[in-house]
């Protein structure tokens, strides 16, 4: 319990540092939201008036404190760019899309790589093992936007299984929404499936080489009992940690993939809000992304704690 409380406290501390960093970041990068909104035909005094209206002339620490206060009351302010809309209102549909996309990719990773990884670990053929690690290397080496283009080329343009750019939102039709999101999800999942299979099988292989496995085997236990009864249990903690990291990476990968597939999610919104210097929106998205990243590793730690009580003693460090 103490361990969990400590984890939670450090999560909050991390989030505070992240939000502070975002504020400082925006005071450092060049580009002003007011001039970006008004464009090239604006007069200097129009820009100044808009800056006043947006509260940009207030000192940084005042803006930060205002923002933190607003955050706890659920008021994230309104967007600079979409003048008449609140941040919460703008972000909610984007968050939904990104959540669906992330959950889909994560499920794909687990459903495909757990069985494949176990099968791969049992394989005796050296050729096969080499093929697996080479494939893993190859898939890892391709940038995700390129994977996206190739998937679009094959499934979208050549096979016409989906229409690139015709995403339908969840509220209109959940089935159509999912049917479109399958393809970006594949792009996110593909390299991670390869990595997970590789990681899983090498962890299991390492366990198999350990003394206890030999002992169990020499006692004549069946291979499947060995695998599921002992090996899997022992290799679970590193695998859970790894999956926690993977979950965190998915959100970063979705930034690029959403761009390629024209999916109106958080990542794409983040990019355009950064280039338009829409601070309130960026700040909110950064908090969500950071929370996702920190929460997935914390979750992995806590699950491990449940799976392997031995960790509890060492958890103090």
């Amino acid at each position, binding site marked *: 319990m103490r361990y969990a409380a400590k984890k939670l406290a*450090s999560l909050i*501390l*991390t989030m505070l*540092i*992240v939000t502070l*960093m*975002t504020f400082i*970041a925006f005071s*450092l*990068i*060049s580009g002003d939201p007011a001039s970006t909104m008004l464009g090239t035909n604006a007069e200097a005094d129009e820009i100044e008036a808009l800056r006043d209206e947006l509260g940009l002339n207030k000192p940084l620490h005042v803006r930060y404190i205002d923002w933190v206060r607003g955050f706890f009351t659920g008021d994230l302010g309104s967007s600079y760019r979409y003048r008449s809309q609140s941040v919460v209102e703008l972000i909610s549909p984007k968050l939904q899309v990104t959540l669906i996309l992330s959950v889909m990719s994560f499920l794909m990773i687990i459903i495909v790589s757990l069985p494949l990884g176990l099968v791969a670990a049992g394989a005796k053929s050296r050729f096969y093992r*080499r093929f697996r*690690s*080479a494939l893993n*290397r*190859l898939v*890892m*080496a*391709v*940038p*995700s*936007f*390129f994977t996206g*283009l190739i998937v679009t*080329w094959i499934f979208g*343009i050549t096979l016409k299984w989906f229409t690139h750019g015709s995403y339908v939102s969840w509220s209109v039709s959940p089935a159509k929404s999912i049917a479109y999101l399958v393809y970006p999800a594949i792009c996110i999942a593909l390299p991670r499936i390869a990595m997970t299979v590789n990681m899983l099988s090498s962890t299991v292989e390492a366990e198999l080489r350990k003394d206890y496995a030999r002992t169990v085997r020499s006692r004549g236990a069946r291979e499947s009992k060995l695998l599921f009864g002992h090996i899997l249990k022992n290799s679970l903690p590193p695998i859970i940690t790894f999956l926690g990291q993977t979950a*965190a990476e998915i959100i*970063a990968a979705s*930034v*690029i993939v959403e*761009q390629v597939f024209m999916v109106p999610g958080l990542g794409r919104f*983040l*990019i355009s809000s*950064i280039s338009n210097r829409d601070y309130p929106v*960026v700040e909110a998205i*950064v908090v969500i*992304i*950071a*929370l996702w*990243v*920190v929460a997935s590793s914390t979750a992995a730690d806590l699950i491990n704690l449940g799976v392997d009580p031995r960790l509890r003693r060492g958890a103090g*460090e």
Partner: protein
Amino acid sequence: MRKNPGLFFGLFIFGLLIAGIITAYFWTPYDPEAFVASALEPPTLRHIFGTDDFGRDIFSRVMKGAGTTLAVGAFTIVIGALVGLFIGAVTGYFGGAFDEIIMRINDAITAFPSILLALVIISLLGPEKTSNLVIALGIAFIPSYARVSRTAVLREKNQNYVTAARLMGAANFRIMSVHILPNTVSVLLPALTIGFNNAVLAEASMSYLGIGVSPVDPSLGFMLKASQSFLFSAPWYAITTGLTMVLMVLSVGLIGDGLKKIGR
């Protein structure tokens, strides 16, 4: 060689690429910036990779670009690994409140979108140059190395040989550099090759988003981004640059795997 074909294969490809990159410093078939032929010519004997949308020789540009990409990957992991290693080792070894604070900042950087981080650093350093992108990516990579090395140091710290050294009155610095660090190399080596992989991909992604890249000395990632507009009418542009990039990352990965095998 027969026992370790991956290493051999990796070294072979990497050697070829290095040879090409070094040659490009003195000679390329054509001036990489000159418009030498008509636009988007398919591969021929004169232009073995074809020409790009300006009629520049893609092969010459790939030779030059591979150098930029290699430099981006290498310097990023040098910055990330050196600083990360140092931070991780110090915090892991001494522990306490200092460790706690540094690790929270570490977490915060990890959780912070790297695109925004890159933008900040590039804005601070002035004009968009490839070198600034390298620094930005390097900083973004520090936390992962810090974490890896901290864990490794923590594990070694309580081993008998370290305790023995400490009892014998060895200085902290000596314990760390002579006893602990050499033992963590086997953990760090795979982290380095994955780091190279990720650095090259991150640079390509930044190019795709149009952040912090310079068309003056184009990297393979920048060219790959440019080529995607012509994926259908001139697929050789994307294939040749993409393949070179994949081969570079692949060969470094294979070398890493091979070395790990030898280490065992």
